[in-house]
């Protein structure tokens, strides 16, 4: 099939982008609304359907082969690939920004052990699968390394939604899953850094000797640790410089610009671009600019990231996948088993019983953005072929589909997930439900409670831009706050219920004081009158 010669490349790119933005939004919305499935699935499926290996073969009326194969034979045009790369940088920059590093360093040992278990098992079984099925000649083969790396990173957002719906976010399982996912992210990025370094070092086709591995791993790890340490050390000074520009837009743009620079630098030293972007986000995560940058960059993220997922979907060559479908199914099953065992077994030794261990394991199951980014890097660098890329996409689809279902199912049995009943009583989830006369008032109180916890030096962050759920953390304390309509719900463990109640009661008292003052203050009425006086008078004499 010939390339899309009908349109000027730039015009074709604009149309492609427009179509992708519209279709991914609609596809993601339908899947969420009708099937209650993660939007990322819809975005991937849209890409697979309109991509060059499916409907892209056909011409669009008046536009020609809009999504046909690119002139060089690639699945996507260089322009679209550039946008997808930029999207992955934005995604990882925000991901780093959302990482609570101090909590990560301090947080329960359980989360760390579970995270390491998941990463080790996933890498071993992922890479092993490539070797056992003849896709790779050994553990140092790029295909094995990439299939290992792709399998490591959990996409916790999907599990977090299920935990929130089941009101289990503050449960021991929920807290462990979220903590382990932070570790998993950081470790996954380090694994990627090492894998990319090794694959590039072996790029001359000569392979790589075991002796060189330490050097490469050391270099990758060194860059990671060095850049992160420098970033964290300079973060406050850097944030002071950013604040000099005052406007939130300028601050966010400068931070993103620096993330791109560090991404470029990390590519130059032989690592993946997303590593630099992640480090930049991580460095800024300890400054007070997090919310400002998040808010400003989120718009860009919301538009671009679905395009990234769809672009990854477009790269799936069904013909190539067909040949290795069996391996793909086995790889997907191993990806499931590796997290269930890799995270579940350590959980068993950290105070959880069989129920709890299974919940932790299946909660760590979904793979998403990082797996796709790693697969994309592997494909575009030539380290893996279309067939292996297809396997990775299949695994992402399977784990993203299975994860939420299994996690929801694992909570059907209300039995405690802890071995010691007294621990279960301490960590029993309690709800503080506050009903207000209107959604506006509920939202106001939600904001007050968030502020109150921040004043107590808790780390509070919103789970996702489109979810009114907040995580509130400090040391081993973990609460979730949700605002739905006119109701605010604070979920806590029994152990810290008193603290949560006391914080909330202070805010309720402040609200009562404010209402009382507002009723007594006649100035408010005068101000109201002054604001509307003369608004609609013809002569404008009374106007402002």
């Amino acid at each position, binding site marked *: 099939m010939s390339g899309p010669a009908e349109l000027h490349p730039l015009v074709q790119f604009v149309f492609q982008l427009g179509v992708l933005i519209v279709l991914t939004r609609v596809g993601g919305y339908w899947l969420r609304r009708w099937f209650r499935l993660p939007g990322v699935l819809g975005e991937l499926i849209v890409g697979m359907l309109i991509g060059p290996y499916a409907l892209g073969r056909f011409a669009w009326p008046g536009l020609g082969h809009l999504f046909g194969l690119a002139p060089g034979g690639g699945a996507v045009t260089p322009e679209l690939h550039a946008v997808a790369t930029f999207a992955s940088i934005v995604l990882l920059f925000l991901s780093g920004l959302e990482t609570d590093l101090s909590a990560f360093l301090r947080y329960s040992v359980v989360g760390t052990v579970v995270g390491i278990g998941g990463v080790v098992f996933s890498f071993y079984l992922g890479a092993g699968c490539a070797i056992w099925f003849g896709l790779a000649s050994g553990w140092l083969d790029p295909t094995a390394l990439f299939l290992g790396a792709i399998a490591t990173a959990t996409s916790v957002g999907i599990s977090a939604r299920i935990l929130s719906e089941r009101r289990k976010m503050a449960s021991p399982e929920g807290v462990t899953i979220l903590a382990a996912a932070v570790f998993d992210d950081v470790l996954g990025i380090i694994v990627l850094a090492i894998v990319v370094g090794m694959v590039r070092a072996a790029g001359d086709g000569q392979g790589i000797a075991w002796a060189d591995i330490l050097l490469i791993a050391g270099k990758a790890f060194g860059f990671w640790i060095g850049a992160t340490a420098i970033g964290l050390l300079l973060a406050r000074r850097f944030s002071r410089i950013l604040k000099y520009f005052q406007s939130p837009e300028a601050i966010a743009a400068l931070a993103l610009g620096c993330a791109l620079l560090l991404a470029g630098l990390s590519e130059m030293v032989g690592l993946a671009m997303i590593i630099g972007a992640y480090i930049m986000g991580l460095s800024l995560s300890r400054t007070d600019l997090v919310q400002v940058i998040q808010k400003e960059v989120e718009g860009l993220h919301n538009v671009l990231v679905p395009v990234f997922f769809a672009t990854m979907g477009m790269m799936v060559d069904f013909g190539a996948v067909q040949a290795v479908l069996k391996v793909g199914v086995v790889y997907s099953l191993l990806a499931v088993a590796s997290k269930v065992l890799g995270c579940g077994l350590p959980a068993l030794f950290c105070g959880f019983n069989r129920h709890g261990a299974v919940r932790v394991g299946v909660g760590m199951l979904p793979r998403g953005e990082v797996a796709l980014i790693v697969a994309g890097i592997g494909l575009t660098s030539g380290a893996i072929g279309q067939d292996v890329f297809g396997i990775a996409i299949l695994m992402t689809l399977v784990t993203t589909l299975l994860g939420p279902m299994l996690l929801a199912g694992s909570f059907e049995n209300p039995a405690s997930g802890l071995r010691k009943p007294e621990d279960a009583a301490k960590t029993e989830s309690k709800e503080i439900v506050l009903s207000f006369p209107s959604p506006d008032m509920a939202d106001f109180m939600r904001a007050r409670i968030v502020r109150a916890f921040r004043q107590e030096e808790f780390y509070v962050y919103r789970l996702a831009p489109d979810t009114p759920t907040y995580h509130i953390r400090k040391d081993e304390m973990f609460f979730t706050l949700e605002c739905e309509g006119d109701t605010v719900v604070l979920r806590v463990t029994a152990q810290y219920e008193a603290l949560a109640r006391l*914080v909330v009661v202070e805010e309720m008292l402040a609200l009562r004081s404010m209402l009382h003052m507002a009723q007594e203050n006649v100035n408010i009425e005068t101000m109201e009158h002054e604001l509307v006086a003369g608004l609609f008078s013809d002569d404008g004499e009374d106007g402002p």
Partner: protein
Amino acid sequence: MNLKKPLTAETISLDLKGDSKDAILAEMVDLLVASGHIRDREAVLKAVLEREKRMSTGMQNGIAIPHGKTDSVDCLVAALGIKRGGVDFGALDGQPSNIFVMTVSPDSRTGPHIQFLAEISRPLNDAAVRAKLLAATSPDEVLHLLIG
């Protein structure tokens, strides 16, 4: 958080003299002055009284947790007082209050305030601890019971 730092033997009284809520609060603020971190005693008392005006901090089982925020303190300060026989503090259960934990922290700085109150009061949920506290003969015994 480190509970030992704000609560010391100097800021513990095993025999509060006041017979009214206001007198007890004033006495507790005087205990806080002993911490050496208070710049303006009156401002601290005012902050605590204003908080009490909104709603009594008298809880159940004789426990009261008066507190307030003002920039007249350099850091979180805390005191513990015991009133033999109790005093009417307008408590939730209508019973006299006899164990008082007071905290005051800076208004314009972030840091644990409610968290301190919640943590220091947690052992007081236990009736046995309350009984031992009321029978304590020295501030060190109180510290040992609450902080270990």
